């Protein structure tokens, strides 16, 4: 048998590609197979080549792994070594000019730190996925009545039951949640645990998993799973956090009985950590919600939160279309209550972060502008330094350094500077994030995640690299544009900067001033708007009033008990030294709980067109305690009891809507609630006041005396002579003296509530103002830097002029003129930009338009004068030039 050998070229190809230790056996294998082919020599030759090429192709991509450290590796070493050399050189350069380095690093630290801090909040709130699986399909359902300006009203039980019945084709799960409170005597002190009642499928709609035990099943809602029969099952599910906090994470709790509100409940499950629903958030305990008999007819008391998960095979548009159809059908079926009411499905993302999305994005934009100003500042400084080093660069080029090498050197320097700045910036971001978090309005989910985590640090890293390029590229490019001959021929530093550099400086100054202008005007508008809200008449006096919420339905199931309880407790509180007055109200100002009720003059039927007013409950002295002026008539008295004729106090706007300019005293009106119609006689008129958000206008409201509508959910309001904190314990003890087990659901001073109501506006205003101030200062420093550099470059020329007898003022003008032109251009450009940009603020502004003339004029004057001052400060030394020294130097 003849043996064929592999063609030499094919063997070489293999030798190039495959690991050396494999070469011999691969060639051996091929020759072994080739010899078994028994085909003509030409075929075999082709066969060898074909397989050599294919095998080599397989090995070639990973070739570098087995090739000995060859040329490529040496070249890489060279690159690393050159980089290290550049770094050492840059570090020496920085150490030689500590002042420059410090200014640059601090500027960069501020810019990068602020950007990172805002980004960490944006990341946590807006970029993090929502805390529900497939969150884009989960939404909150609201009743919407656009004709009455009600965009997101909670849902009445009757409507919810209708919706649930009609939507099985579009929703996997639709469920409702209602607020609840359970009293718990843990460590001897009574306490209300915020709880919630939920219908079947609530946890499933939100995709919540159980940490332990089970969630609610059909049987928990009455024998056949029918939740509309008023059945009651005393079982509970805890949140993970409550279970950890109160029961130490004891897993044997499942199946045991715990007493809440004097009733034994069986604990069936513990939810996974961090579960929090998008409506009625922050509840610790969940129980099955069973509707009372007749609830399916109640379409008036809108208090349920509803959530729904859209089926996977149904598009969101389809779902919305179907909801619209169902809404109009129900409106037709129940014209009395539902005319104009449709169903809106709000995605959880919008529900949870919709409020802060715009302010956060605006702040991110603002902070990016601050960073850009910082960058252009440093770029300017580096440009100036570059001019001083032109001799050095020219020498290096003359000695054979490639220009690319110089660019690399300069970029390395800016990178080192930026890295130093960004390390300090990360430290600032750590504190900055805490500052931002302290200002963010309450109720935003996932805020706890904000901080220096991996994505945020990566972001900071990317910003650092980008910054390094931004600040380094222009000066580097500019520095290498110098002519070697011209520069080397000059003995000292250049007499005047090149035209390109001059234009660059101008562009930097103009854009800095323009950006600062936009931020300044934006913050000016927010400040004006905030002052407007602060200065608005609340209609009540929040000073030294403390509010304590109690629920005593369970403890006093009978109306008489509740009336007596509040009368006794108020008597006890009024006896406390330092208390000026005390009362109870169902919903004092800035309280979330305001039920809307349809009202009409007596004798006129309530229709869908009827006036909607807020109906609430108060006891004697309420208006005096809250500082709400009585305009006519009297306050409630103890004589307005259960047996007396029903009376009411109306606010001025309700009186006007019902009776126009006629006196309302002694007139009667009908209020229709889910519990029936009540006719009341007006005994007093109170001034209007702001109920909820301070931005809203006062709503028409009527009050009933507690004795005639004895609800169990009431808030004690107490006005004290001094700081309420000092008297608070005495007040609590006085209330406890009537019933020691009565817990307080919430305690806050009215001033705290006012401040909380402004938190969203305050958040945007404070941060934007901080950034605007930062931008203004940086722009002023930048302008100063540019102008003093230009002045120093013109020393010789100025010296000649002064020697020739030029007047100092004239010289000053000559030198400053360029700066003034730049600053004015920047202010003008900023005004135009701001005119467009401040429109984004529209939804955050109250009592001021986005193009408010006063803000625009004051803002541009402020910035112009600041920048002008910086210019003059920098150029003033030109007038003090000693001609002899300047000419010699």
């Amino acid at each position, binding site marked *: *048998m003849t*043996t064929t*050998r*592999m063609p030499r070229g094919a063997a070489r190809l293999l030798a190039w590609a*495959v*690991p050396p230790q*494999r070469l*011999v*056996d*691969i*060639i*051996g*294998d*091929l*020759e*072994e*197979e080739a*010899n078994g082919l028994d085909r003509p020599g030409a075929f075999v030759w082709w066969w060898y080549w074909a*397989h050599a090429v*294919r*095998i*080599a*192709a*397989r*090995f070639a991509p*990973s070739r570098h*792994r087995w090739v000995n450290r060859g040329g490529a590796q040496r070249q890489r070493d060279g690159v690393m070594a050159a980089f290290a050399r550049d770094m050492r050189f840059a570090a020496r350069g920085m150490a030689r000019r500590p002042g420059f380095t410090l200014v640059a690093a601090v500027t960069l630290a501020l810019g990068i730190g602020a950007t990172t801090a805002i980004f960490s909040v944006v990341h946590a709130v807006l970029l993090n996925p929502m805390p529900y699986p497939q969150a884009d399909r989960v939404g909150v359902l609201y009743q919407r009545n656009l004709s009455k300006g009600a965009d997101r009203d909670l849902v009445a039980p009757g409507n919810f039951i209708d919706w649930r019945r009609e939507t099985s084709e579009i929703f996997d799960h639709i469920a409702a949640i209602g607020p609840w409170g359970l009293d718990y005597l843990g460590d001897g002190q009574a306490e209300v645990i915020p709880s919630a009642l939920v219908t079947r499928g609530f946890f499933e709609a939100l995709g919540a998993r159980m940490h332990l035990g089970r969630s609610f099943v059909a049987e928990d809602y009455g024998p056949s799973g029918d939740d509309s029969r008023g059945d009651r099952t005393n079982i509970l599910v805890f949140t993970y956090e409550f279970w950890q906090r109160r029961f130490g994470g004891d897993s044997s709790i499942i199946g045991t009985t715990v007493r809440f509100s004097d009733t034994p409940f069986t604990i069936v499950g513990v939810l996974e950590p961090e579960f929090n629903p998008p409506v009625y958030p922050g509840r610790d305990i969940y129980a099955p919600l069973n509707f009372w008999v007749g609830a399916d007819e109640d379409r008036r008391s809108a208090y349920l939160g509803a959530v729904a998960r859209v089926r996977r095979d149904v598009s969101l548009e389809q779902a919305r279309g179907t909801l619209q159809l169902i809404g109009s059908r129900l409106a037709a079926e129940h014209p009395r209550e539902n005319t104009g009411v449709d169903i809106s499905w709000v995605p959880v993302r919008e529900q949870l972060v919709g409020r802060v999305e715009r302010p956060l994005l605006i702040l991110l934009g603002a902070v990016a502008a601050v960073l850009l100003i910082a960058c252009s500042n440093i770029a300017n400084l580096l440009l100036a330094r570059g001019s001083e080093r032109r001799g050095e660069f020219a020498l290096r080029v003359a000695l054979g350094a490639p220009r690319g090498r110089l660019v690399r050197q300069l970029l390395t320097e800016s990178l080192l500077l930026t890295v130093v700045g960004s390390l300090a910036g990360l430290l600032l971001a750590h504190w900055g994030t805490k500052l931002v978090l302290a200002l963010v309005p309450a109720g935003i989910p996932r805020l706890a995640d904000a901080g220096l985590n991996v994505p945020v640090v990566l972001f900071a890293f990317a910003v650092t690299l980008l910054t390094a390029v931004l600040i380094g590229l222009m000066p580097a490019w500019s520095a290498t544009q110098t002519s070697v001959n011209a520069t080397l021929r000059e003995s000292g530093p250049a007499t005047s900067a090149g035209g390109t550099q001059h234009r660059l400086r101008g562009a930097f100054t103009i854009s800095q001033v323009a950006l600062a202008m936009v931020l300044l005007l934006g913050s000016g508008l927010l400040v004006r708007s905030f002052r407007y809200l602060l200065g608005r008449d609340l209609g009540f006096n929040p000073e030294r009033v403390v509010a304590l919420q109690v629920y005593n339905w369970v403890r006093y199931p009978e109306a008489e008990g509740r009336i007596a309880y509040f009368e006794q407790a108020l008597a006890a509180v009024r006896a406390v030294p330092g208390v000026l007055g005390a009362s109870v109200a169902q919903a004092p100002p800035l309280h979330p709980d305001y039920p809307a009720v349809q009202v009409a003059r007596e004798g006129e039927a309530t229709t869908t067109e009827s006036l909607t007013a807020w109906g609430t409950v108060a006891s004697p002295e309420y208006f005096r305690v809250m500082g709400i002026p009585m305009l006519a008539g009297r306050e409630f008295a103890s004589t307005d009891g259960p047996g007396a004729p029903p009376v009411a106090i109306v606010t001025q706007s309700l009186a006007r809507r019902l009776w126009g300019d006629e006196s309302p005293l002694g007139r009667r009106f009908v209020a229709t609630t889910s519990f029936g119609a009540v006719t009341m006689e007006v005994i007093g008129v109170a001034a209007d006041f702001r109920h909820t958000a301070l931005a809203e206008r006062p709503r028409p409201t009527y009050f009933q005396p507690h004795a005639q509508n004895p609800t169990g959910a009431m808030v004690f309001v107490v006005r004290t002579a001094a700081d309420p904190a000092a008297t608070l314990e005495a007040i609590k003890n006085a209330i406890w003296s009537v019933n020691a087990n009565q817990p307080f659901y919430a305690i806050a001073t009215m001033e705290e509530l006012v401040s909380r109501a402004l938190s969203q506006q305050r958040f945007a205003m404070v941060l934007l103002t901080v950034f605007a101030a930062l931008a203004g200062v940086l722009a002023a420093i930048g302008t100063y830097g540019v102008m003093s550099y230009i002045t120093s470059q013109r020393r010789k020329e100025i010296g000649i002029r002064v020697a020739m007898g030029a007047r100092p003022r004239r010289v000053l003008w000559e030198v400053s003129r360029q700066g003034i032109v730049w600053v004015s251009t920047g202010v003008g450009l900023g005004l135009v930009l701001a005119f467009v940009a401040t429109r984004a603020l529209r939804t955050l502004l109250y009592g001021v338009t986005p193009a408010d003339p006063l803000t625009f004029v004051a803002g541009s004057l402020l910035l112009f004068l600041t920048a002008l001052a910086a210019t003059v400060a920098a150029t003033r030394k030109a007038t003090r030039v000693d001609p002899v020294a300047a000419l010699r130097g």
Partner: protein
Amino acid sequence: MPTSPHMPLGEFEQLVLLAVLSLGDEAYAVPVRHEIHRLARRPVTRGAVYITLERLEQKGLLTSTVADPTPQRGGRARRYYRATPAAVAALRRSRAALERMWAAVDATLGKVSP
């Protein structure tokens, strides 16, 4: 490149290891390729076999020894491969994973079909 022995095996790696195991003392590249071709019924390129053998050896799943040169091969030696215990363990893990996945699929298919 350090490789964890617990990294899951690719499908072709499994085929090569199984071929090496089934060939016993006769496992070198040429019969490995034929064995895969014969039992897995798919065309296999030489390059794929060589680079996989190389990779498996680097992962510590194969060891190789060079035998005496033979005349059919132009006096060049064969390189014989042997699977290590780690390879056997990795193969067993892959098989168990597949079987579990199949059991789940079978259960579902069983429900779907009448």
